[in-house]
C-alpha cells in the first residue's frame, strides 16, 4: 500500500511541475523547446521504483496535464515523446554502463525525436526534418540539466525505500 501512496505523491509532483512550466515558460528563444521539469520526476521514479511504475507515471502525468493545461492534440505529441523517451531510458539504465546524466540526456533527445516523428506524420512530409539538429542539441542540454538535478536528488533520497 505504501507504493500506492508514493505513486500518488509522485503523480501530484509531476503535475505540479507541468503546471509550473505552463505558468513560467522557460523559453530560450527557440520555439517548441522547454525544460521538461516533469521528466525529472519520471527519471526519479525510474531509478527509485522501476520501469513499469515510471511508465505508468509518465502516461498518467501526460494525459492529466494535457487535459488540464493543453489540448488533445498536444497529448498525442507528448505521449509519443514520453513513451519513446522512457523506452530508451529504460534500455540504457538496464544496460548499466550509463550514469543518470547519460540516461537523462538520451531521454531528452528521444523525447524530441518522438515529437518530431508525430509532426512528420501530421504534416505528411519530411520538411520538418530541418528542425532536427536544433531539437537534438536542445534535448542534450535539457536532458543534462534534468540529469544533474536528478543525480543530486537521488543522492539525497538514498534512504527512500520504495
Amino acid at each position: 500500500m505504501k507504493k500506492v501512496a508514493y505513486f500518488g505523491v509522485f503523480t501530484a509532483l509531476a503535475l505540479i511541475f507541468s503546471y509550473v512550466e505552463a505558468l513560467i515558460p522557460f523559453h530560450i528563444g527557440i520555439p517548441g523547446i522547454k525544460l521538461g521539469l516533469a521528466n525529472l520526476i519520471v527519471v526519479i521514479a525510474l531509478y527509485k521504483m522501476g520501469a513499469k511504475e515510471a511508465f505508468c507515471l509518465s502516461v498518467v502525468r501526460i494525459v492529466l496535464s494535457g487535459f488540464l493545461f493543453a489540448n488533445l492534440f498536444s497529448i498525442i505529441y507528448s505521449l509519443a515523446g514520453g513513451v519513446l523517451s522512457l523506452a530508451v531510458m529504460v534500455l540504457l539504465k538496464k544496460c548499466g554502463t550509463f550514469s543518470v546524466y547519460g540516461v537523462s540526456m538520451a531521454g531528452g533527445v528521444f523525447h524530441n525525436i518522438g515529437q518530431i516523428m508525430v509532426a512528420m506524420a501530421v504534416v505528411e512530409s519530411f520538411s520538418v526534418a530541418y528542425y532536427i539538429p536544433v531539437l537534438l542539441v536542445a534535448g542534450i542540454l535539457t536532458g543534462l540539466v534534468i540529469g544533474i538535478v536528478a543525480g543530486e536528488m537521488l543522492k539525497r533520497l538514498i534512504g527512500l525505500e520504495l
Partner: protein
Amino acid sequence: MNIFKKMKKNDWILLGIVLCVAVVFYVVRIFSADKSPGYVKVSIDGRTAGTYDLSEDQEIEINGGTNRMEIKDGKVKMIEASCPDQLCMHQKAISLDKESIICLPNKVVLQIESRDKAELDAVVK
C-alpha cells in the same frame, strides 16, 4: 565542474553520437537546400498578403506602412518596423526554404518558399 568527471565513458559516447548526428543533419540541410531564389510569402495576421520573387531587388511596404522589407541579392531583410522592440529588424537576412522573419507586434510573417514548392501549399488529408 565535477559533474563532468562523474559522467561515464558511455555518457560521453552518447553525447558525441547525438551531436554528430545533429551536425550531419545540419550539413545535409545546408547543402541540399534549394539555392535557386524562390519566393518570400508575406502574411499579416495569418492571411497571405502577397508573394514576391527573390530574384529581383526591391523594397516593399507591408501592412499599410507598419513594416518595410528589402529584397537584395536573393535575401530578405526587414528594414523598417513601427513596433517598439524592433526585434525583426535585427534578425539576419533570410534566403533558404522555410526560413522566416516574424514581427509579432504587427503580426507580420515573412517566410521563404522555394520555387518548386511554391504552388504546393496545402496539406492533403
